[in-house]
Structures are given as structure tokens and as C-alpha cells.
């Protein structure tokens, strides 16, 4: 198995994908079997797939859009919010397949359909994959995870990230080798000849502030402990929303990045690990809209992070991925890194340090980092979850 990455910030989509693909093709010594494409929305995805159809007709293409740029082992790339990154796997002894399906008001079924298509594309219908790599347009990630699990079983790790754009304007897109869609899911099934490893974490710590959701609707918390959710949250955070509430603003996305809400996803010998939700906006002056579903009766914990922890965490998550399998860094052939766009925006000026932390954890190893509007990963206890402000890593063994 060979893995390589490439990037470009060329002025046009055609120029960027041509430059990046030539580079990866050369590094791999031939066309990849699976090509993960991460691009900003500034490039035309339709142009990208036209170029790839000519240059890489045999490759399975898994494409999604990233917020403002990408990162690889060579650095963080964002030329005025524009970049494309590629991650190619050449593995004649493995099998890979991709499938894309429109959500069409039934995301669970779309996820199943995309997974079936991917398995068929890999020549392994009915077979349990080693791992599933998923990208979806934001909004229905929990249903998508459920759909995949219902089909292949809950024991298959599902890792990925929600497509993003540069300004939360709904311009995100996903694509395969023949179609582009802005309301769909793409699934890649992985049967690599080498080990796959994964890790799912955040750079946040629990605080003493906690409460129970007493009223919720979809992705909105209306009440915590029978009090308006926004008031409880503002009190927990020591009044970070005072000014916003006074002004009557509703967008709280940037203000809440270091204070997400956590739920216990599982425990290891009594030590909990958390699934995070990012408060996005104020609803009807009392509710909090999140980028994840929330249910009545769930216990919420206020989490707290620092810029330092968001910078250091990426490398730590990558390290955990291979250490869990008792491998060392030199036994990793390459890694895919999902890094929350919200975290990236918080530490944007220090993104070189984020890359450094990954380079330290994965020395001389190719990796591609994408900035997403929702992260999907598999926790240490085996739970596949969707969260916000999190980091998800999928690594491939060198043997």
C-alpha cells in the first residue's frame, strides 16, 4: 500500500486539480485506487470531476468541500480562502468503493443506498468493511450514521466530516467521479491490505457546570433544568453572551467556540469521554440551536477549551490512533485528519502550529486535513458519533 498527498492553490479549479493530481500520480508511481479530494468552494467541483475523469478514470473519487483551506504534511494552505488537497491510496491488494446518494428527505435511506453502492463499487457487496469514510452535507449526520450502522452493523468504525464552505452560506458540496450535489452523502468503504486505525477526541475539558435538558426540539435546546437554555448557558459561562443578549443578536457561533456543550459518550473504567455540540444561535430569545441533535433527559456539561489545547490536540489525536494499536509513528503509511472548522477559525493565525503538532505525531508521513462543519468518528468504546468542535483521525498502517 502506498499513500501520498498533494495540494494546490492555483488560480483556477482546472489548474489546481491538474497540478495536484500530477503531483500525487507521480508520488504514487501511478493512479490511485482511492482519491480523497478536499477543496474549498471557490473552485468549481464540476470542473474538478471533469479533469479527474480524464486524468484518473480508474480511481474512486470521494470529494467534499472544506472551510477556507486544507492542511497536509507540507503545511496549512489557504490562498485567500482557496486551496485543494488530495489524499491518494494505491493498494492493489486492497479494495475500495464509493457511493453517493441524494438525501431526498430520507437521509437514513440515502446513507444505506450510498453504502450499498460503495460496496458494489468495491466488488464486495454484503461484506463488512474495515472502516467507512463518510462526507455529508450538514444537517442530518445522526441519521446518516444510523443508516450506515443499520446496514453494515454498529461494529464498523465510521469516520468523516460534514462538508463546509467559507462563510456558512450553505454553499458546501460533495462529489464523486461523476456527480456534484449540495444535499447528499458520499460513502467510501475501505478494505485496505494494511491495518486501519482511528481516534476521535476534542481539545476541551469538562467544567463543574452541568444540567439536564428538560425541553428540546430537533437540534435546539429550549430548556435546561426547566429554565430558558440561553440564560442557563450564559450563566454557566460567566456571561459571555451578555452583550449579545443586550443587543438582541442571535448569532453566537464565534463566541461559543471555547465553550461547547458536552454529553458523556461513554466511559473507560469510570473515566468519561465526551461528544460535543457547538451552540450556533439563539432561538426565540430562549433556546440554543446546535449543529447536533439533542434529546430531552440528556445530561449536559459545559466544556471549556483554550487555543493551546486546540493547537496541541490534533497531534495527540493522531498519536492516539496508532498507539491504540500498539504501533509506532514509523508504522503509519498515512492519515486523514478531520479538524473542526470552528476550531480552525479560532486558531487560524496559529494553523502552522497545528500542522507542526501533526508533523511531530506523524513524522515523514503524508496526511490530509480537512476543515469541516461537523465531525464523525468512532470513540474508544466503539461508539460511532457525530459531534462538533472535534478532531477525528483515520490512519493506515504501513504493513
Amino acid at each position, binding site marked *: 500500500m502506498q499513500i501520498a498527498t498533494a495540494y494546490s492553490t492555483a488560480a483556477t479549479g482546472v489548474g489546481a486539480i491538474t497540478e495536484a493530481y500530477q503531483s500525487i500520480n507521480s508520488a504514487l508511481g501511478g493512479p490511485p485506487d482511492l482519491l480523497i479530494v478536499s477543496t474549498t468552494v471557490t473552485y468549481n467541483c464540476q470542473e474538478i470531476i471533469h479533469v479527474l475523469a480524464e486524468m484518473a478514470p480508474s480511481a474512486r473519487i470521494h470529494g467534499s468541500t472544506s472551510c477556507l483551506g486544507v492542511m497536509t504534511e507540507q503545511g496549512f494552505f489557504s490562498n485567500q480562502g482557496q486551496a485543494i488537497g488530495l489524499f491518494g491510496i494505491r493498494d492493489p491488494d486492497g479494495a475500495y468503493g464509493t457511493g453517493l446518494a441524494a438525501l431526498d428527505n430520507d437521509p437514513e435511506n440515502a446513507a444505506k443506498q450510498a453504502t450499498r453502492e460503495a460496496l458494489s463499487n468495491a*466488488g464486495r*457487496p*454484503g*461484506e*463488512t468493511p*474495515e*472502516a467507512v469514510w463518510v462526507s455529508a452535507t450538514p444537517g442530518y449526520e445522526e441519521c446518516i450514521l444510523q443508516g450506515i*450502522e*443499520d*446496514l*453494515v*452493523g*454498529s*461494529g*464498523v*468504525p465510521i469516520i468523516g466530516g460534514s462538508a463546509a464552505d467559507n462563510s456558512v452560506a450553505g454553499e458546501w458540496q460533495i462529489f464523486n467521479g461523476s456527480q456534484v450535489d449540495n444535499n447528499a452523502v458520499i460513502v467510501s468503504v475501505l478494505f485496505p491490505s494494511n491495518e486501519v486505525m482511528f481516534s476521535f477526541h476534542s481539545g476541551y*475539558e469538562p467544567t463543574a457546570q452541568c444540567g439536564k435538558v428538560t425541553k428540546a426540539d430537533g437540534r435546539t435546546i429550549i430548556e435546561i433544568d426547566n429554565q430558558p437554555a440561553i440564560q442557563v448557558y450564559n450563566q454557566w459561562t460567566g456571561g459571555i453572551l451578555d452583550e449579545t443578549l443586550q443587543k438582541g443578536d442571535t448569532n453566537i457561533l464565534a463566541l461559543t467556540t471555547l465553550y461547547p456543550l458536552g454529553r458523556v459518550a461513554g466511559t*473507560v*473504567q469510570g*473515566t468519561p*469521554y465526551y461528544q460535543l455540540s457547538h451552540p450556533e444561535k439563539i432561538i426565540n430569545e430562549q433556546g440554543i440551536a446546535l449543529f447536533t441533535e439533542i434529546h430531552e433527559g440528556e445530561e449536559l456539561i459545559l466544556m471549556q477549551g*483554550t487555543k*493551546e*489545547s486546540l493547537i*496541541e*490536540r490534533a497531534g*495527540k489525536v493522531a498519536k*492516539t490512533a496508532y*498507539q*491504540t494499536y*500498539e504501533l509506532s509513528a514509523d508504522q503509519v503509511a498515512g492519515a486523514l485528519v478531520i479538524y473542526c472548522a470552528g476550531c480552525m477559525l479560532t486558531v487560524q493565525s496559529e494553523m502552522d502550529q497545528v500542522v507542526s503538532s501533526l508533523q511531530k505525531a506523524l513524522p515523514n508521513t503524508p496526511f490530509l486535513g480537512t476543515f469541516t462543519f461537523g465531525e464523525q468518528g468512532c470513540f*474508544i468504546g466503539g461508539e460511532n458519533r457525530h459531534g462538533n468542535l472535534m478532531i477525528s483521525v483515520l490512519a493506515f498502517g504501513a504493513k
Partner: protein
Amino acid sequence: MNDAEKLREDILDIERSRNRERELRHQLEGLLDGFRRLTLAWDTNEIFETLIEILHPLLEFQDAVILQCVESSSIFRPIAGRSSLFNETQWIPGKLFQRVQNGNSVAIFDINVIDEWQQQSPHLRANIFSALHIPLKGPRPAMLICTHSRQGAFTRQHLRLAEQISPLASQALLAIENHELRLQHMQIEQEEAAARERAALLKQATQLLGMGVALLDENGTLGMGTK
């Protein structure tokens, strides 16, 4: 990273290592015990039952069968099974069996889309959704198939275990084959002893006839008599 965060991370790391170590020790102990018990098992049923007893807690299956390629044919037939469900079945190898024969363990989350399983009767498939196929080494191609009624019951962890278990299961297959060979050998020995006895009697009869004193009773038993 602050101290509390680091401490929590360290606890998780330690627990992860402990769990991994515990799992590996448990598996190793199970496999060693398995090898020991297999050497003591005598007949085909006992060998297979011992194997199932060892593997069941590890692979969490509901039913299991060993298929072996029929001599001078590519068709597989069961040689031992946990239930009678697989009796009289025959399996024509397709892509899946070829991969298993190449030494790969394969987990299937839905047997209904697999060629080899589609050939089987609806009765057999009625209560099976998932299957784990484990290659077995032996003089003829063979595999252990573990099944479950739940879709997606077998995971990558089961596949890893299957790779470790394959030598034990192969050992069981060899033990079964040795038992069959022992039975065949015993049968041959018995036949040879009977033939030797017949030859000796014939020789004795010939000698007695030469002396003119041999008599055969109504059952054909050789005896002595006088004129």
C-alpha cells in the same frame, strides 16, 4: 494541555493499554487451553464440540460448520457442524470462497447478496444474516463458517480474532482428519486380520484335507473327524 486534561488522557491511555493486555492474555489463554483440549479429544464430534466451546465466547456466533472440498472436485461439503442445519448441503465456490481459500478471513454482514449463500435453500438462510468465514489449513481446502441471525454481527475485531484462531481451527480439522484416518486404519487392520485368519484357516484346512481328516460342519467351521 493543562494538568487535569493530561491526567485524564493518561488515565484513558493506561486503561486502554490494560484493556488491550487483558484481551490479549484472555485470547492467548483460551488458545493454549484449546490446543491442550484438542489433543485430548478423541472422535470427530468431541473434537468439533471442543473447538466450538473454545471459539464461542470469542466469536459470539450462533451456529458453526466446517466445510471441506470434496476430493477430486471443487465442491465443498460439511464434515462437522454444530447443528444439523448444514447437513447434506453442498457449496460451489464463487468469489467469496476463492478469497477464503487464498487465506483471507471474510466477514459478511448480509449473506443474502453472496453467490455461495444464494445457492443454499431458503430454509437454511431463514435464520442467518451474518457469517464469518475462516480459512483452514489442511491437505484439502477447508473453512470454518460461523453464523449469526443478526445483520452485521461480525466486526473487524472478530476478523482479527479469526486470524489468530485459524491455526487452532486448522489443528481441529487435522485432528478430525486424523480421527477419520484412524478409523480407516482400524478398519483396514480389522479387514487384514480377518483375511489373515481366513488364510490361516484355509492353510490348516488344506493340510487336514491332505491328511484326509478335515470335516466342515453345517456352518462351514473346520473341525476334526475320523473315517
